């Protein structure tokens, strides 16, 4: 205490045994957090050494003690007393004595108010997990229902949404997502055309690369790839934004101001996605087909005209309409699940991270499930 730890002498311990069996333990130098392990080992040895009488801990030579060091000294005294012997702490300077007084040994053994063990056996964990899943599913369904009701109400009262926010989220989710969507779609088109041409060329069926790619892109890959990209880019962003607002009590502030967080935060995001995702998907379809065109013209000796003609012949209006409906559903699910996960956040930063992850995972899961349903329904749908 009297000087800095770095300038203090290293810790030393001296034992002086008196004739009557009593002993004096002289502690010198510094007892601090740094090197405390070695010091406690030496002190433990003192505590366990056989001794007939009183033990006096002489602290007059101590140059520096921090609170951890003071704790070690008190623990030594306690250990000696626990063996039924007497022990006193002598010649402590006022500073050291102040530090010793600071520490309440009683408080250290007090049991914790709550236990660490919050673990359960496997069966209950499985049960809890399943119940949590059901609760979660019902919450998501209720949330989706609320949004649909709000969207219907919106048709009669367009003023209840801030359209400037809708434009903002259209830019964030749509325009700013354009580069990555174009890149992935173009590469996807190139790859599929190239891989399928390897097979089709053997039969001289080069021209069918165009039809294969057109159908694959428009019916399945375009909608799915775009939806997964938007879920990763924007669904996560929605969850993180609303989650952080929740942590900062901004959502509560909206409620107290009489603004419905649902209208204020969710609807603009959902509307923006509903507008932007179908557009992005069309764009992705186009770029995928262009990717196929590049492969067809450069590697397969097809003419641009014949490639486009083949693509036009194979695609029907039905393909476009079903693809469009699918993307609208995807867009709705991505935005709604993102917002729902955001509103679920309780606690701090870690909860925001969990919500973001869960938003992406749940959205992708729902995209795949819905896509499977569409695939079956559209196959058996009478045209």
């Amino acid at each position, binding site marked *: 205490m009297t000087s800095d730890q770095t300038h203090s002498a290293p810790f030393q311990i001296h034992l002086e045994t008196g004739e009557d069996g009593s002993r004096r333990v002289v502690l010198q130098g510094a007892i*601090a*957090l740094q090197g405390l*392990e070695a010091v406690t080992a030496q002190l433990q040895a003192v505590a366990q050494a056989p001794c007939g009488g009183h033990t006096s801990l002489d602290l007059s030579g101590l140059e520096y003690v921090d*609170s951890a060091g003071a704790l070690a000294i008190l623990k030594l005294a306690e250990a000696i007393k626990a063996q039924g012997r007497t022990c006193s702490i002598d010649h402590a300077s006022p500073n050291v004595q102040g530090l010793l007084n600071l520490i309440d040994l009683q*408080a250290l053994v*007090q049991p914790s*108010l709550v236990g660490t063990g919050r673990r359960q056996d496997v069966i209950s964990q499985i049960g809890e997990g399943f119940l949590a899943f059901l609760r979660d599913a019902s919450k998501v369904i209720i949330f989706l229902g609320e949004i649909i009701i709000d969207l219907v109400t919106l048709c009669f009262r367009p003023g209840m949404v801030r359209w400037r926010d809708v434009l903002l989220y259209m830019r964030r989710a749509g325009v700013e997502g354009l580069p990555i969507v174009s890149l992935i779609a173009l590469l996807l088109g190139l790859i599929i055309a190239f891989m399928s041409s390897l097979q089709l060329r053997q039969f001289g069926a080069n021209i069918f690369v165009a039809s294969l790619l057109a159908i694959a892109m428009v019916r399945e890959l375009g909608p799915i790839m775009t939806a997964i990209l938007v879920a990763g880019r924007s669904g996560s962003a929605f969850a993180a934004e609303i989650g952080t607002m929740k942590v900062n009590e901004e959502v509560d502030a909206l409620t107290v101001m009489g603004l419905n967080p649902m209208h204020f935060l969710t609807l603009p995001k959902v509307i923006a996605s509903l507008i932007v995702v179908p557009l992005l998907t069309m764009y992705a379809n186009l770029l995928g087909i262009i990717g196929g065109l590049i492969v067809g013209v450069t590697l397969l000796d097809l003419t641009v005209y014949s490639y486009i003609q083949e693509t036009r012949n194979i695609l029907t209006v039905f393909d476009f309409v079903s693809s469009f409906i699918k993307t609208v559903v995807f867009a709705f699910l991505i935005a709604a699940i993102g917002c729902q996960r955001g509103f679920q956040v309780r606690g*701090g930063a870690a909860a925001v991270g969990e919500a973001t992850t869960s938003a992406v995972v749940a959205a992708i899961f729902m995209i795949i499930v819905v896509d499977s349903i569409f695939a079956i329904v559209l196959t058996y749908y009478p045209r």
Partner: protein
Amino acid sequence: MKLPEAEPIIIVEHLRAEFGDNLIFRDVSFQVRRGEIFVILGGSGCGKTTLLKHLVGLYRPTAGRVLVNGVDVVAQDPVEMEQVRRGTGMLFQAGALFGSMTLAENIALPLQQYTNLPGPLIDLIVRMKLSLVNLNGFENHLPEEISGGMKKRAGLARAMALDPAILFFDEPSAGLDPVSAVELDLLIKWLNAALGTTMVIVTHELQSIYLIADRIIMLDKDAKGIIAEGDPRVLRDTATDPKVASFFNRQPVGAEYQRLAQKLQIRLTTVAAPLEGSTGGG
């Protein structure tokens, strides 16, 4: 413990802070002495917290330097900075406890990172730190399960984990009820007396300033620097600067005073006379 001419532990020389074109303060110089409770105060928006973040090296100044325990914080030499960081602790406004960790894990974190003590010993030290801030028994609570005042005390326990020579406080009493606030103030004073820790506190709570501060500096938004320095109890009685006087006597100042007085149709009496003399034009 507090010798009047104790050696300085923090030296600030000609510090200047700007964010873009926005000048926060310029040419701020002062010293903090070892073992004292030093308060940085001033009205809202005068750069108190900014100054504190410069002292701990979170922000880098445009010009000037900060010496903490003889180490230049501005230079940010990695080895020296680790020394400085080990020797300082900071209590953030809302405690800044890690939400995913229990209180015990929060406090054990610096101990595990900076020392190689065995687990049981760290446990013991953690319990002692918690008992110092009167949170015994709350080892396994998560930060979200305790109140704001308890969070601040737990944050203080974490800041003290390594027995730092200097503790920084950012508005310790903000957001606390008067009783919790005064309890925290007394805890700070008690720890200062018992551990000899130098305390640097940013606050604008007058009562807490009178209770704990040994020395203060006062920053001002318009002067962009220090407008008063010294013992707050002396400053209250002797300050001639209208801003300083009005702060210590809780009076609105200058044009704002005129406006409020006019609106309320009353005369705010106590310091009205000197104020009107000095702000007659405004």
